[in-house]
C-alpha cells in the first residue's frame, strides 16, 4: 500500500513538469509525452520488481537452508550415533514430499480463495500460478516466487516436529503422518493467518492477529504437534534412566548457526520485498537471537553451574522462534527484550517442566518451538507498533503499548486456534496412521538404531 503511494508520488513528481510543458506546446505532441510517461512508469515498476524478486529468491533459498542442512545437522548431532541418518532423512524427506504436495494441492489450500478456514482448489496443480504477480499477496514479484517462498515454510514446519519423536518412529509412518499433517494442519493454519479472507488475517480477518513470519503458523503448530506426538508415541526405551547424550555437539553447532543465518530469509523475507520493513525484520531477528543466546546461557550458568555450548545454541534458536511473529512489527529494543525473555523461559521449559511432566520430547521441539512460539505470539501483541508497520492503517494503533490493548486478545485467539487445531489434527492423524501401518519401530529395531533398521546403512563406518 505504502509502496504504491510512493510510486504514485514519484510518477506525479516526474510527470508534473512534463505535463506542464506539454500544455504550452502543440497539442499534437501530447500522446508522445504520455507514452514517455507510461514507459517511465513501467521502468520504475520493473526496477522495483527486479530488486524485490532478487531478495525473495535469495530468501527462499535461505529458508530451505534452514531445513537442510540446518535442522538436519542440528537434530542429527543431538541424537545417538546409531540414529543420525534416520534423523537427517526425516528432514530431507520433507524437502521431497512437501514440495510435491505443495504443487498438487498445498499452495491452493493455503493461498487460494476459499473460506475463512481453508483456501480453495483454484490453484490445484499450480494452475494459474505464473510469472505475473498475485496482487492479493505480493504485487511486485512473480507469483511463482511467492509460491516457492511459501513452500520453504511448509517444508520446515513438519520437519521441526521430527525432533520430538526422534529415535523411535518408523520411516514409513513418519512419511505418511507428516504428509497428511502438512495438508490438514499446516495449510488451514497458513490460510487462516495469511490467506485472503482468512479468519486471523491481520488485514480483513474477523480476528485480526499479527503474525509476521509464522509464530503461530510454523512454530506453535509444529511445537504443539510435537508435544502431542511424543506423548502419543511414548518414551524411548531406557528413557530417562539411560544416558542419551548428543553424539556430536559439533554437528549441532554448525546446524544451529545455519539456522540463525537462514532465519534472515525466513523473517526479513516475510516483508515480501527488498523494503525498509525487511531491514527492520532483519535487525530484530538478529538482536533477538543474540539476546536469547545470552539469556539461556546465563540462566543455565546459574541453574547448573556451567554455561554449555548446547545451551547457547538452543537459546539462539529459542530467540529466533520468539521473534518470528514480531519481527516485522516491533522496534529493536523490543526484540532484545523478547529474545531475553524467550531464552530464559524456554530454558525453564526444558530444564524443569519437561522432567516434571515426564514426557520424552527427545530434542525439545515443544520446549523451544511450542513454548517460544506461544510466548512470541503474545509478546507481539504487546510490542507491535505502527511506527514500524502500520498493519491496521496509518493512524491506527497496532499493539498494546501502541495504545491497542485489545490486540492482546486477538493474539491470544490466534494462539488458541493454533493450539486447538494442532492438538486435534495431530491426534486424529496419529490415530489413523497408528491403526493402519503402525507408528513405532519394534524394540529390537529401536535398540539397533534407525540407520540400520530403517535404511540399512550407517552414518559412520570407520572401518571402511
Amino acid at each position, binding site marked *: 500500500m505504502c509502496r504504491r503511494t510512493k510510486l504514485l508520488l514519484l510518477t506525479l513528481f516526474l510527470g508534473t513538469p512534463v505535463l506542464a510543458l506539454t500544455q504550452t506546446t502543440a497539442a499534437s505532441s501530447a500522446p508522445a509525452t504520455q507514452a514517455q510517461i507510461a514507459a517511465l512508469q513501467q521502468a520504475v515498476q520493473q526496477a522495483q520488481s527486479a530488486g524485490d524478486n532478487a531478495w525473495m529468491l535469495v530468501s527462499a533459498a535461505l529458508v530451505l537452508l534452514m531445513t537442510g542442512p540446518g535442522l538436519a545437522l542440528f537434530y542429527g548431532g543431538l541424537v545417538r550415533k546409531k540414529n543420525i541418518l534416520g534423523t537427517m532423512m526425516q528432514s530431507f524427506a520433507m524437502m521431497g514430499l512437501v514440495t510435491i504436495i505443495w504443487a498438487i494441492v498445498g499452495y491452493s489450500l493455503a493461498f487460494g480463495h476459499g473460506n475463512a478456514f481453508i483456501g480453495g482448489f483454484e490453484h490445484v496443480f499450480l494452475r494459474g500460478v505464473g510469472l505475473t504477480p498475485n496482487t492479493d499477496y505480493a504485487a511486485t514479484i512473480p507469483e511463482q516466487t511467492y509460491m516457492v517462498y511459501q513452500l520453504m515454510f511448509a517444508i520446515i514446519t513438519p520437519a521441526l516436529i521430527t525432533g520430538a519423536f526422534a529415535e523411535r518412529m518408523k520411516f514409513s509412518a513418519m512419511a505418511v503422518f507428516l504428509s497428511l499433517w502438512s495438508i490438514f494442519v499446516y495449510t488451514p493454519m497458513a490460510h487462516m493467518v495469511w490467506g485472503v479472507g482468512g479468519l486471523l488475517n491481520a488485514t480483513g480477518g474477523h480476528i485480526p492477529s499479527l503474525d509476521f513470519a509464522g509464530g503461530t503458523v510454523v512454530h506453535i503448530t509444529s511445537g504443539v504437534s510435537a508435544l502431542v506426538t511424543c506423548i502419543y508415541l511414548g518414551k524411548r526405551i531406557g528413557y*530417562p534412566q539411560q*544416558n542419551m*547424550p*548428543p553424539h556430536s555437539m559439533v554437528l549441532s553447532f554448525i546446524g544451529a548457526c545455519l539456522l540463525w543465518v537462514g532465519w534472515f530469509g525466513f523473517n526479513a523475507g516475510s516483508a515480501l520485498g527488498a523494503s525498509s520493513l525487511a531491514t527492520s525484520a532483519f535487525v530484530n531477528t538478529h538482536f533477538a537471537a543474540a539476546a536469547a543466546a545470552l539469556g539461556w546461557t546465563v540462566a*543455565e550458568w546459574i*541453574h*547448573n553451574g*556451567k554455561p*554449555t555450548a*548446547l*545451551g547457547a545454541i*538452543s537459546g539462539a534458536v529459542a530467540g529466533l522462534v520468539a521473534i518470528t511473529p514480531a519481527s516485522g512489527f516491533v522496534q529493536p529494543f523490543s526484540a532484545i527484550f523478547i529474545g531475553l525473555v524467550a531464552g530464559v523461559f524456554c*530454558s525453564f521449559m*526444558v*530444564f*524443569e517442566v519437561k*522432567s516434571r511432566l515426564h514426557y520424552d520430547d527427545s530434542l*525439545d521441539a515443544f520446549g523451544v518451538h511450542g513454548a517460544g512460539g506461544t510466548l512470541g505470539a503474545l509478546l507481539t501483541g504487546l510490542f507491535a507498533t505502527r511506527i514500524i508497520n502500520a498493519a491496521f492503517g496509518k493512524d491506527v494503533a497496532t499493539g498494546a503499548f501502541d495504545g491497542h490493548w485489545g490486540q492482546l486478545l486477538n493474539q491470544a485467539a490466534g494462539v488458541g486456534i493454533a493450539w486447538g487445531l494442532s492438538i486435534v489434527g495431530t491426534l486424529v492423524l496419529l490415530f489413523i496412521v497408528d491403526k493402519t501401518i503402525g507408528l513405532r519401530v519394534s524394540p529390537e529395531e529401536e535398540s539397533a538404531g534407525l540407520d540400520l533398521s530403517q535404511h540399512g546403512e550407517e552414518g559412520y563406518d570407520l572401518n571402511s
Partner: protein
Amino acid sequence: MVKIEAILQPSKLDAVKDALLEAGIEGMTILEARGHGRQKGHTEFYRGREYTVDLLPKVKIELVVNEEMKEKAVQAIIGAARTGRIGDGKIFVSRIEEAIRIRNDERGETAL
C-alpha cells in the same frame, strides 16, 4: 617370561612408547580401551540433564619380556606415565608359559 599390561592416560602413550624403546624393548601391542578405577568418571550436562560418564578413554599397552627386562620395563613405564594425580593408571605383571613365533615355529625367549 612375563607379560606386562599397563593401562595409561591416552595422552601419555607417546612418552611411554619412547621410554620403552629406549629401555631396549622391541615389541609391544597397543589397545584403545575404556574403563575406570577408583577415580570413577565425570558428569556432563546436556540441556539441564546430568549424565555420569563413568567409562573414560584409556590406552592399554601390552608387552612380553624375559625376567631380566621386567623391572627395566616397569620403571620405564612408571617414569613416563606418572603425574602423581588420580587416574594415572595401573601395571599388571603375569607369567607367560610359552611364546611361539608363527613364521618359523621358534619357541621360548628367542621368539620374543
